[in-house]
């Protein structure tokens, strides 16, 4: 078969899927947030300061994990479960490359959240946008870590997003126990340390540096690369008709 073998030929369709799925949802939530803060800024202007930076930080601290789960949850397992992979991957398109493109587009959608939110807040508050280099870097690291975990789990199970959500929530809760000095036995602490460092995801904090930065980026990259290698070598089918 000859023809267009450009590796990016299907990317516009994938971008459209991301825009019409998670993208629309993110836009609706951002619009609601902007509307709420516009109302608050009108009625309570002198009671407490509402700044774009404050809203950005609090919003992203709360929703970063959920946003990534919405953007890439079920990325591989959904197609495998529904049987779509049979039509998609009978075509000359490497599986790992297809899902890498889809994953990156999901990441772009997540990265656009602070940008669009900043623009919206600037519009409704009249000043500031709250977008900083640290915020963007932390969101990118957050996507790499959570998105990498989802991609890896998605190769095996349809519950990828649920497992990441539960583990991330438990892991972050556990980190706060340790921070306040609650007694924790050594085995539990070791298990916690072996898990992806979701507790480092704090978009509102200064940019990660040194060992925590390496830990988060290294873990995220490793999960992503392992997922892509598995997609390269592991068949998608699980049975004759599955």
């Amino acid at each position: 078969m000859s023809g267009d073998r450009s590796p990016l030929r299907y990317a516009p369709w994938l971008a459209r899927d991301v825009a019409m799925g998670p993208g629309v949802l993110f836009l609706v939530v951002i619009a609601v947030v902007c509307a709420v803060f516009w109302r608050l800024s009108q009625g309570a202007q002198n009671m407490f300061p509402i700044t774009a930076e404050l809203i950005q930080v609090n919003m992203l601290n709360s929703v970063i994990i959920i946003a990534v789960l919405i953007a890439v949850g079920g990325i591989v397992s959904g197609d495998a479960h529904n049987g779509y992979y049979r039509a998609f991957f009978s075509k000359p398109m490497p599986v790992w490359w297809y899902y890498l493109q889809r994953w990156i587009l999901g990441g772009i959608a997540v990265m656009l959240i602070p940008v669009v939110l900043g623009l919206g807040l600037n519009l409704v508050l009249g000043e500031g946008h709250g977008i900083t280099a640290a915020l963007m870097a932390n969101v990118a690291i957050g996507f790499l870590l959570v998105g990498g975990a989802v991609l890896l789990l998605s190769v095996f199970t349809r519950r990828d997003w649920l497992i990441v959500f539960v583990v991330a929530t438990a892991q972050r809760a556990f980190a706060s126990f340790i921070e306040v000095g609650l007694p924790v036995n050594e085995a539990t602490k070791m298990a916690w340390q072996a898990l992806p460092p979701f507790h480092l995801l704090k978009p509102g904090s200064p940019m990660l540096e040194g060992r925590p930065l390496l830990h988060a980026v290294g873990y995220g990259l490793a999960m992503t690369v392992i997922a892509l290698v598995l997609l390269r070598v592991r068949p998608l089918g699980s049975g004759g008709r599955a």
Partner: protein
Amino acid sequence: MIAFNDAGKTYTAVLTRKRVDALTGFTMEMRRGEVIGIAGPNGAGKSTLISLLMGFLNPTAGSIRIDGSAPRPWVEAHGVGYLTELVNLPPRWKVPQALERLANLAGVPANARRARVDQLMTQLGLVEHASKQVRQLSKGNLQRLGLAQALAGDADVIVLDEPTHGLDPLWTQRFRDVVAELRRPDRVIVIASHNLDELERLADRVAILNKGRLQRVVEHGAMTVSPASLAWRVAFEGDVAVDAVMPAARRVEGRAGAWVVEASRTEMSAALGALLGAGAVLVECVPAESGLANAFRAAVQE
């Protein structure tokens, strides 16, 4: 072009470690220019065989090669025109969009894609369903969409799994015409089907599977007339006493003038000659069971 060499697939349950041999010791070569049929009862291993060929499963024994390469790298490099038994596509995609997306994935160049989609929609009778979403299609129309997407690229390997599943008789006939047009010297076409009549009409060779094993391969020449049973179905206008010439002949209940006769070709010719000489008017005389049907029955009873 495609070589199965002692290929096998065993599924092992994770918890109980129970093993199921879906396919065992399958060896066969499929050459360019051939149409190969795969027949077998439910659970015979047809779908597993196709999943192995597409690289959606890895064999647990033996090997499969397409032009000397493992199936998945070959499919990812060249593409296969593949119609699945159950056509699964995202339900909200509209019919032309589904075809355009899959033609894009198949590597149809952007400047030719629209024309290719229009051609496929016309060829497979999908034009009147252009405004529908995939989820709104009937079984037969979905099957035609599945066939259209399989033909979107100009693949050297075409794999059709139960291609006439859900098609009405008119489209079943048109499907046969489409497959006949697909035949070319540098292409291999693999058709898995329960429909022996379909395989008999289309395939050069038919591999009969049962219980995960290749029972036999029937060549086209051996499919048309049964060498073993020599049962014939004959019918005449009016009430002709066939049993007067051939005492073993039995009337077909509910069909006036129709008989089933067991005889060699020579005996049948002689009997027909006698009856026609006596003024009988022949309506039909066909083998009651084809060689393929006969081989299939024998294979699954073994």
